């Protein structure tokens, strides 16, 4: 047991108000540790403190009670027995009466009430006693802020932990609290939260409180402005209303009060935005208020007039809200109540739509705009939603209003006076648009309204149209307004029909009134439209006129057949008309696009719904288009043809299948024409067709299931044709065509499954083996290490014949695109083949080799004999196979060892061309290894680096036991070193032609980071340690490739080390025009570093050299983007600390004055920005005053000029 005196001393030190806060806290801690360690029990402590808890000295008593309370707060986990808890809570509840010691009592109550059941909780009866004492004794409003907060916390704690006992007791207390708290206080938020919780969880208890609770809630809400609280209020009100479901019950006397509370918040509008309010959005609040408004129909007499009144507000958000609320409340209040407001609602809607329309934009385009090209804002769309709601609700009432509406009938009456779109005045257009939209929405709502609207309005329209048709028998002319309204009605009917079909519950019978009306007149309208469209292109009609005519035709053609029977001939007429526009009027872009779009719509419609029309469509549209592609005899430009074909193909699976077939035929006939007859113009067409096939058709087939057969057919077809292509020895070379065929082949193979790829592979292999001499005899392949008997004339490394190249390239394409699991037949032979051809400079072979290496299954099972070799075997073949070299049948090697790929790279053969080919090949193989994360890639990198090093030839010579005499002490030839440097670009960059995701490469994540982190240190140390006399530009070049292609985040984090290297690289790359793309990507890296926080530090240190380098690039002549980005970088530099960059300022400004004269506008604009950024920083006043000017200035003041007047004003 501790010395009592120690305990007493601590207690005294805490109670003594003269002690410092630290001392008090220390003594509290000591007491806590005493109790925690069991040295003092609570009981003993209370006895010890007896005097302090009961003394008449208010200060000491307050401190004493607070001590006990704080102690309990800190001991919340110490288990206490029930008796102790009971006596303690009894004590604290009792002390709530004593306002002088209130703080301690509150803290104590809270500490005890918050205890968890495992450490002993306050029993429910005691909690209720606390609540009672609280209600009886506490006058929250008179307390200080901290105490008030404690009170609310206590309330919360009670309500959360003991809701059953205290719910009804505390409800009013809460409401009272709300009356005394101030807006925006945390406390009032808490109260509302609790109130909501009570209402939701204990509705019965609260409901039993009756009218009083409604009254109190209303009172407590009054004037609340805090958005968080309001959010709760808007939730509380519907919950409260829900408690009294009987409309004639206790709620009946309160709607006015409720409305007074709520109504003042509409429309929700934040007057000032504070940061902390961001989490409550205006829209959320507005939505909550809307639900509160609609919570009871009793509010209708108050709410609806308010909303209608706010419709005329100048605040557009208020208008939108009003319309939204009206739609929502209409549904909630019910048809009967809303019928009273129907008249005023109708006129308000009409008004809202017509006043909110904006002028039509100049660039009218049908994509986004309905009707007459008026921009519809949110007000209009909400008004239309409301219209739909109210028409649905009170169908007859609203319909008769619309039918009898004077504004609408005026529009009908004045329609005949204007024939064309451009004749109608703006106001007239606007009215027409409004009527069109209203009729569309109304018609669409239900069958009944559709019948009614068509009965009333269609006949007059037909009259106007037929009248104008008849008036000029030759020259067709359709009244614009009438046609427009007709189209809106037709569109509405069609949408209604299609919508109710989708519902499937109520299909519309064909004898409905509106169907009969449409039927009686559609044929003549179609005729009129077709014949007017034939002349549209020549008459120079307005865009809107054109749009209307094409769209009307499209709607008529896409009407469900059972409701509007259009004979096959009429349908064909429509298609022919549109097709003739596509064929002839391609100069009228807008008309052409619209016609194509209409055809696409019709196409997708017929392929979905009808079969008979589908045939007509197929023969008139699809087949014709296909014939256009395959026979080049029409004036329609080729790109437009392809566009039309692709759009039409997208309209239905069958259409696409037809088109694909036609396209394939066309491709083969054009390619054959080139290879067989040497027709160069055919090659151009073929390239376009192949590109189209690759870009549009293959992805489509890939996405559509079950069409792999087509891909197989296409690939086999190519291989079938190849034999005929190479049999005619046309020696015209067309690189573009070969590339296009290869890409098509790759994509085709890449989109197939393993089985089909295997079939294609076999086919390809057969063609390859029977048509070229490239493949080596099986007998010449012996076990590893093998001596590759190869007769190859080194002087003509590029001497693969064109026929061989075609076959080989296509074969390589197949290999590049196959999936990893696809079995490759005759693996060894193929490896040897590619190895041989890559040394002859055939890059696709190298890529194929890289792909093979990349996709090799590492876990090739030993049982699987069909897999000829494992990855290791393949690597052995590639790296250990020795080549023999002959010249005029004479062996060139002196010793009999032959050379491997690596030796060739290192120039042991002393043939530059061969060495370059070997390096390129090694790079692609290395890329395959790198992507899959294979160890061997390190060897490849080391070989490449070796090529870059100085004196590499000498070392290469030393490697050989017997060196050639003619090798001097020298570096490799520049072109060799350059290709070794560029090999790093191959390794790092994403290739579009092979080893990517589309062609199923195995790609390890973060491989670029990996290479970066392995190679960069090597390169940096090489750069640092080398003899300065040695030209290091190729080392820089290699580094630059790695930096430019590495992920930015890695480069930026290493910025400090890289920046000087990067600058050096920029100046090296700027020397050769061929490097412009690489230069640009490197510049982008620099700009990324400049804009990054970390990178900035690195730049600050090297500010001068960075700026100097950038200034050098400002005049870069070959690429505008480089100049633009350079100047942007300089702008970014101007943000650096002034002390670092100030000395460079003049230089930059001088450079900018030159850049201001750049031939490109974008550069000039950047230069202006840059100039400003650099000159404004230190004030523009950089001119020095000389005396002569000062003299003039003084003279000028004497002049009666505006200057002087102005200066005197200052």
């Amino acid at each position: 047991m501790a010395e009592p005196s120690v305990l007493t001393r601590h207690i005294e030190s805490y109670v003594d108000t003269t002690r410092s806060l630290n001392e008090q806290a220390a003594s509290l801690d000591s007491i806590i540790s005493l109790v925690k360690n069991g040295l003092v029990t609570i009981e003993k402590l209370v006895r010890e403190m007896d005097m302090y808890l009961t003394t008449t000295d208010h200060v000491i008593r307050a401190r004493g009670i607070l001590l006990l309370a704080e102690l309990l707060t800190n001991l919340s986990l110490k288990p206490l027995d029930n008796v102790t808890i009971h006596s303690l809570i009894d004590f604290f509840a009792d002390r709530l009466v004593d306002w002088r010691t209130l703080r301690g009592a509150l803290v104590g109550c809270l500490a005890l009430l918050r205890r968890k059941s495992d450490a002993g909780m306050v029993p429910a009866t005691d909690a209720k006693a606390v609540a009672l004492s609280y209600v009886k004794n506490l006058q929250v409003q008179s307390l200080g802020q901290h105490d008030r907060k404690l009170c609310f916390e206590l309330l919360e704690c009670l309500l959360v932990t003991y809701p059953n006992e205290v719910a009804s007791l505390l409800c009013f207390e809460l409401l009272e609290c709300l009356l005394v708290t101030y807006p925006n206080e945390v406390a009032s938020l808490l109260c509302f939260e609790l109130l909501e919780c009570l209402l939701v969880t204990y509705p019965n208890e609260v409901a039993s409180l009756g009218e009083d609770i409604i009254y109190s809630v209303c009172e407590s809400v009054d004037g609340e402005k805090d958005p968080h609280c309001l959010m709760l209020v808007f939730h509380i009100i519907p919950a409260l209303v829900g408690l009294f479901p009987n409309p004639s019950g206790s709620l009946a006397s309160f709607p006015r009060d409720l409305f007074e509370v709520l109504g003042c918040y509409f429309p929700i509008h934040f007057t000032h935005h504070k940061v902390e309010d961001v989490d409550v959005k205006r829209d959320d609040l507005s939505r909550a208020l809307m639900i509160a408004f609609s919570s009871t129909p009793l509010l209708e007499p108050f709410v609806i007039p308010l909303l209608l009144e706010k419709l005329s507000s100048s605040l557009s958000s208020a208008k939108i809200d009003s319309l939204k609320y009206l739609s929502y409340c209409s549904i909630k209040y019910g048809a009967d109540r809303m019928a009273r407001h129907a008249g005023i609602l109708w006129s308000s809607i009409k008004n809202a739509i017509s006043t909110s329309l904006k002028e039509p934009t100049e660039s009218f385009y049908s994509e986004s705009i309905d009707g007459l090209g008026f921009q519809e804002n949110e007000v209009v769309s909400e008004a239309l939603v409301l219209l739909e709601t109210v028409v649905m609700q009170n169908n007859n009432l609203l319909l008769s209003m619309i039918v009898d509406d004077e504004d609408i009938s005026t529009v009908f009456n004045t329609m005949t006076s204007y024939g064309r779109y451009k004749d109608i005045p703006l106001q007239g257009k606007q009215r027409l648009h409004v009527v069109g939209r209203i009729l569309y929405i109304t018609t669409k709502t239900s069958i009944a309204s559709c019948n009614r609207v068509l009965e009333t309005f269609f006949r007059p329209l037909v009259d106007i149209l037929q009248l104008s048709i008849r008036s000029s028998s030759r020259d067709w002319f359709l009244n614009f307004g009438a046609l427009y309204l007709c189209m809106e009605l037709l569109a509405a009917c069609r949408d209604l029909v299609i919508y109710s079909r989708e519902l499937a519950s109520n299909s519309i019978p064909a004898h409905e009134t509106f169907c009969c009306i449409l039927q009686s007149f559609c044929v003549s309208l179609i005729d009129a439209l077709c014949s007017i469209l034939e002349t549209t292109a020549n008459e120079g009609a307005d865009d809107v006129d054109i749009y209307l005519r094409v769209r009307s035709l499209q709607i008529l053609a896409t009407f469900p057949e059972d409701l509007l029977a259009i004979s096959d001939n009429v349908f064909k007429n429509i298609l022919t008309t549109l097709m003739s526009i596509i064929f002839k009027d391609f100069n009228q872009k807008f008309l052409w696009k619209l016609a194509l779009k209409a055809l696409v719509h019709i196409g997708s419609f017929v392929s979905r719904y009808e079969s008979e029309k589908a045939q007509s469509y197929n023969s008139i549209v699809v087949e014709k288009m296909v014939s256009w592609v395959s026979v080049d005899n029409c004036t329609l430009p080729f790109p437009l043809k392809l566009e039309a074909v692709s759009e039409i193909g997208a309209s239905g699976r069958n259409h696409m299948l037809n088109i694909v077939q036609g396209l394939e035929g066309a491709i083969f006939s054009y390619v054959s024409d080139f290879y067989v007859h040497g027709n160069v113009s055919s090659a151009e067409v073929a390239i376009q067709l192949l590109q189209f096939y690759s870009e549009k058709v293959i992805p489509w087939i890939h996405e559509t299931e079950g069409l792999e057969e087509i891909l197989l057919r296409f690939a086999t077809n190519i291989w079938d044709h190849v034999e005929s292509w190479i049999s005619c020895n046309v020696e015209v070379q067309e690189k573009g065509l070969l590339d296009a065929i290869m890409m098509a082949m790759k994509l085709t193979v890449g989109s197939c499954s393993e089985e089909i790829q295997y079939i294609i592979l076999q086919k390809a292999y057969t063609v390859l083996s029977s048509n070229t001499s490239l493949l080596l005899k099986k007998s010449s392949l012996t076990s590893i290490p093998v001596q590759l008997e190869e007769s190859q004339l080194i002087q003509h490394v590029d001497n693969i014949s064109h026929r061989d190249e075609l076959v080989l390239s296509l074969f390589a394409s197949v290999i590049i695109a196959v999936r990893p699991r696809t079995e490759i037949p005759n693996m060894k032979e193929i490896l040897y083949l590619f190895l041989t051809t890559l040394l002859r400079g055939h890059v696709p072979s190298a890529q194929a080799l890289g792909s093979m290496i990349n996709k090799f299954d590492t876990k090739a099972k030993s049982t699987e004999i069909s897999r000829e070799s494992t990855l290791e075997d393949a690597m052995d073949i590639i790296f250990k196979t020795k080549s023999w070299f002959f010249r005029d049948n004479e062996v060139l090697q002196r010793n009999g060892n032959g050379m491997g790929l690596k030796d060739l790279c290192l120039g042991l053969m002393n043939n530059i061309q061969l060495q370059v080919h070997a390096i390129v090949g090694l790079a692609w193989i290395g890329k395959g290894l790198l992507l899959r994360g294979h160890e061997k890639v390190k060897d490849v990198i080391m070989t490449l680096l070796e090529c870059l090093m100085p004196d590499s030839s000498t070392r290469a010579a030393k490697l050989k036991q017997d060196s050639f005499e003619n090798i001097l002490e020298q570096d490799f030839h520049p072109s060799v070193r350059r290709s070794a440097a560029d090999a790093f670009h191959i390794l790092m960059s994403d290739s579009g032609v092979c080893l990517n995701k589309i062609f199923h490469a195995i790609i390890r994540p973060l491989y670029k980071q990996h290479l970066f982190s392995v190679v960069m240190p090597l390169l940096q140390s090489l750069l640092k340690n080398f003899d300065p006399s040695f030209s290091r530009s190729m080392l820089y070049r290699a580094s630059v490739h790695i930096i430019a292609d590495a992920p930015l985040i890695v480069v930026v984090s290493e910025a400090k080390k890289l920046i000087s290297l990067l600058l050096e690289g920029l100046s090296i790359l700027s020397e050769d025009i061929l490097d412009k793309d690489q230069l640009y990507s490197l510049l982008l890296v620099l700009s990324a570093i400049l804009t990054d926080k970390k990178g900035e530090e690195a730049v600050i240190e090297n500010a001068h050299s960075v700026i100097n380098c950038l200034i050098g690039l400002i005049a870069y002549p070959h690429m505008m983007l480089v100049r633009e980005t350079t100047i942007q970088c300089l702008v970014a530099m101007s943000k650096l600390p002034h002390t670092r960059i100030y000395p460079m300022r003049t230089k930059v400004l001088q450079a900018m004055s030159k850049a201001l004269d750049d031939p490109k506008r974008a550069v000039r604009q950047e230069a202006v920005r840059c100039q400003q950024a650099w000159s404004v920083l230190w004030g523009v006043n950089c001119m020095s005053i000389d005396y002569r000017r000062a003299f003039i200035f003084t003279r000028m003041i004497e002049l009666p000029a505006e200057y002087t007047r102005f200066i005197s004003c200052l």
Partner: protein
Amino acid sequence: MTLGLINANPVVHAKKERVARTEDPHGDDAVDPLEIYDILFEFFLSVLSEESITVDDKLGRILITFTPTIQHCSMATVIGLCLRVKLKHCFPPHYKVDIKVSPGSHANEESVNKQLNDKERVAAALENPNLRQLVDECLYSSEL
């Protein structure tokens, strides 16, 4: 002394709908009135229009005719000065810039024109710290 508002009820002008320039990736972009208007319009919307700017890119001459909002606008010279300074920053020094008020739009048309196109006076005006500050504020306040 403070400067009172000369134009107490300014008309707020909307930005005119722009005619899209066709981008040509290959050829050079000659300086055209639109480009100058682009540079100037954010400051001098009401006094300028695209039609009031003429450019001869070959000779390197720019002529700007602006219309002060009020006949006796004492700001006319300051506006002209601002235009000149702004253009000086945006075009290489070999461009010759002429700035004029449009005929009949200002009471002291001739003297304003004279001041605005006299090199020495412009230089001198810009060396007056107060005037300089005003011009800078006018030009850069909206940018910084």
